């Protein structure tokens, strides 16, 4: 009984996901919401404002500096967590 209910729920959820995916913006559509909000400003003003020819670097490090700062902090935290979980010094402490 549980198994049949699970299958029914999976089919309904999958249908809903496929239905919503059919309403997505088309690939490489220049008018999709992600391309009309801030992207044009970054692409147009990157060289003028930061003198960096690579827009990826200027978005990563300047316009989205907080994001990258916490990405670095996450990597640091991962290293600390592995040290805490695994590292044992040779004198048993």
């Amino acid at each position, binding site marked *: 009984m549980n198994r049949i209910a699970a299958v029914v729920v999976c089919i309904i959820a999958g249908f809903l996901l496929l239905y919503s995916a059919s309403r997505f913006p088309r690939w490489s559509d220049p008018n999709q919401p992600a391309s009309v909000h801030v992207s044009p400003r970054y692409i147009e003003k990157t060289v003028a404002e930061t003198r960096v020819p690579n827009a990826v670097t200027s978005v990563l*490090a*300047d316009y989205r500096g907080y994001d990258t700062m916490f990405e670095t*902090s996450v990597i640091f935290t991962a290293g600390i967590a592995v040290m805490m979980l695994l590292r044992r010094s040779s004198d048993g402490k």
Partner: protein
Amino acid sequence: MVNDLDDIIIKFGSRIMIPFMQLYGLYVYVHGHSSPGGGFQGGCIVAASFILLAVAFDLNESKKRLKEKLNTLFCAVGVFIYTGTGFLCLVAAGNFLDYGKLSRILPVDTFMARYYGMAMIELGVQITVMAVMVSIFLDLVTRGQHEDVLGPRP
């Protein structure tokens, strides 16, 4: 895994490759401003050179070149450089991570100050990524013992 293989081909090959890998890691960092690359990628390449040293030779050879204490310090120094750059912008009466205001400290205009601010934080990212990758690798392969897992050689 991390023991002495005594394979002349692997040792000689990695001995030739490692300096170029480290140089290439720095190149990827420096060229991150004008081509694909940056701190994350460059840090991974430099870390891969130390990991190759540990795999091709042995663990002590890698730890001789990059001391364990120094490596653990580097983990924190990278994040410190990043946030320190942010606080430097606060000192220069700007917002946190507002590199344009660094022109009041550095002898450059506002736009080049943003350029150099990005270079500084990418350096921090590079150091942290390099140190954490090496540290996690050494912890995982030795189960945290930081010695050769096979013990002293007979």
